[in-house]
């Protein structure tokens, strides 16, 4: 009797497993035929449903919906179904959707993540479409999505480019001249010395200055974009070579740049990563009036304006040989490789609508989140007016702008690089040792992906 029950149990278990398998197998077949069905429908009735993914924010969602409505009224055959998530969850979800073959037809990608999806074969190559429909000279930053083989994987939705922010009140109080476009990083440090203040009000160039009680930093400094990459590159260094598969970390130029940073942090003119922990966020020191200067992308004007700072911006300083570098992040529209036929055409229509129409560009620019992609709009009075006064500096910086050595494993190598270099920043290991270790570990990350 007992034996019989045992075999029954096994039987039931196997039935469950088999039906589970069948269920998943069926679902695959269904979804494929479903997609095909939609495509056919598009051909006949010219009706297309487009799944559009973007990360939401309280400020921009209404504007996005407004633009979507405008697009739909201009293209009555296209219905847009939006898929939005909070920024951090968006990419977590996207990875799940890609694994389950139900990613949106096109989505807004963080600029630094475009190669991650492109090199894993998820995105459509936009090179022929861009050549056909977009005049490259009319736009900023198309090339920031170009890979080492000259292919384009996305069209920028808005551009983040870094300049030097400075708090005028703090400069006035310390009687220091405002930064100029001729500054070198050493000029910046000399000014930072006069602007770094301890809690008793003594500046860093005073012998009684207590560097353990800093209440105001000369320059706030955080991670890659608004931190080390800008300095490394203007000193002639960098992280990856032009193929973006090989580390060039251990060089004399990088050593020189790193020495500049570490010296600044040891003297507390710049906050170390652990100093930043005492702030509401890593971005907080400048808007909360605890730093006189920052390397900041365009979006940082939002917080600076919200905090009602008396501030302005100028070009980032030059390196010792006169080289400049301004990091760029171009959040971009990318199209799913699986969006073919009518769907693919509709997706490209949306990208064109976004990039080419002046009105759309102006509407989006009015949110103040990014520099418009279209040069004519970026150069218009509408964009250039308002705070900060010298917005022109953002546009002038395009002359020496570059990406953050972005490739398919960007997040991973930035993590490794930060782990090592932060130890040098905290004074735990010497700069050359940090560079050497970072070089080995970053190369290992690169090899794991590219040497397969």
């Amino acid at each position: 009797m007992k034996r019989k029950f045992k075999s029954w149990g096994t039987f039931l278990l196997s039935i469950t497993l088999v039906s589970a398998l069948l269920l998943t197998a069926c679902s695959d077949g269904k979804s494929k035929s479903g997609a095909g069905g939609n495509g056919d429908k598009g051909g006949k009735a010219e009706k297309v449903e487009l799944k559009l993914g973007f990360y939401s924010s309280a400020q921009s969602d209404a504007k996005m919906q407004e633009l979507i409505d405008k697009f739909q009224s201009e293209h009555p055959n296209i219905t847009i179904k939006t898929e939005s998530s909070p920024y951090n969850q968006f990419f977590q979800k996207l990875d799940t959707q890609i694994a389950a073959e139900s990613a949106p037809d096109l989505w807004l990608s963080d600029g630094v993540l475009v190669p991650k999806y492109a090199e894993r074969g998820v995105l459509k190559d936009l090179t022929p479409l861009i050549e056909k429909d977009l005049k490259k000279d009319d736009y900023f930053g198309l090339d920031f999505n170009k890979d080492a083989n000259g292919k384009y994987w996305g069209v920028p939705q808005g551009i983040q480019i870094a300049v030097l922010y400075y708090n005028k009140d703090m400069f006035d109080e310390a009687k220091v001249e405002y930064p100029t476009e001729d500054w070198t990083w050493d000029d910046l440090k000399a000014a930072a010395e006069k602007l770094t203040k301890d809690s008793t009000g003594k500046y860093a160039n005073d012998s009684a200055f207590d560097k353990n009680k800093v209440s105001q930093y000369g320059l706030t400094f955080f991670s890659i974009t608004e931190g080390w990459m800008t300095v490394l590159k203007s000193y002639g260094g960098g992280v990856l070579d032009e193929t973006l598969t090989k580390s060039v970390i251990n060089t004399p130029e990088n050593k020189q740049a790193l020495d500049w940073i570490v010296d600044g942090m040891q003297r507390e003119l710049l906050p170390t990563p652990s100093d930043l922990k005492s702030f509401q966020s890593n971005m907080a020191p400048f808007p909360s009036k605890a730093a006189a200067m920052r390397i900041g992308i365009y979006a940082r004007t939002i917080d600076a304006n919200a905090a009602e700072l008396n501030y302005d911006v100028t070009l980032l300083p030059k390196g010792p040989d006169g080289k400049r570098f301004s990091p760029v992040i171009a959040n971009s529209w990318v199209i799913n490789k699986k969006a073919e036929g009518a769907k693919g055409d509709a997706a490209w229509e949306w990208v064109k609508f976004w990039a080419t129409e002046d009105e759309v560009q102006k509407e989006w620019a009015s949110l103040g989140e990014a520099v418009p992609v279209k040069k004519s709009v970026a150069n218009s009075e509408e964009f250039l007016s308002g705070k900060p006064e010298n917005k022109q500096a953002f546009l002038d910086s395009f002359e020496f702008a570059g990406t953050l050595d972005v490739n398919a494993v960007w997040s991973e190598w930035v993590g490794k690089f930060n782990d090592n270099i932060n130890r040098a920043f905290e004074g735990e290991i010497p700069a050359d040792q940090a560079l050497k270790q970072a070089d080995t570990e970053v190369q290992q990350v690169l090899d794991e992906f590219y040497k397969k």
Partner: protein
Amino acid sequence: MKLNRTRKIAGYTVIILSSLIMVMPFLTTVFNSLKSYAQYTKVPPQWIPDPVQWNNYAEVWKLGPFGQYTTNSVIVTVLSVVGALFSCSMVAYAFARLKFPLKNTLFLVVLGTMMIPPVVLIIPQFVIFKSLHMLDTLTPLWIIEWLAQPFGIFLMRQAFLAIPKDYEESAKLDGCNPIQIYWRIFLPMCKPTFATLAVFTFMTKWNEILSPAIFLTSKENFTLPIGILSMAGQWSGNEQYMVAAALMSLIPILLVFLFAEKYFVQGSNSAGIK
């Protein structure tokens, strides 16, 4: 007598001080929700907001459909709690009292699944719900609870095992079948455990981020945590509004706690009798 009084005073001082320490972070949150952005990021921090920004709370309601988010959260949470109580107690009853083949092995398997991190399960779940056409609906969020989750099974089974067999034997003599025993004997005797599981499920579901973030795509289907997170955006924090929204989303949890408290007390009382 005097000594007794000094002792009392000392005792109360300790209690008041430690409860102040506990309340501080909460008060900080309340105060932060009433600051402007400039006040919020001020260094050194200004504890009490001046002037008080009462309109932060009104602003939150303008920044997103919070009524809709709340409704969604309530639907998911209520259905989840009912489902968890129903399914977990049924399964637990079977594991605690019924005789069937491979019982202990199956129970071990159930416990084993507790060790799988949710992140690993999310892709298979996504695939399953996609094939059932349940994505971007609230269903996947609560239906999972109707399929008996291991923690609840374990909790209920332990409670059921503690009930002396004499009760059900006498019930059997009176002609009860297993369902009746479950319904008339086990359920009433384990109220505190039910309350515990209900509160636990409520809290988990109310605060859940991963599953709703993955399964939901339309704004009108978002639950509260996702709604609050989606206020932030990539570049701008809106921190003071998020704090205000988070505080408002706390109110139902507080209510549930106040309501369920009496069951906790009951639980400890009956433990004393046994």
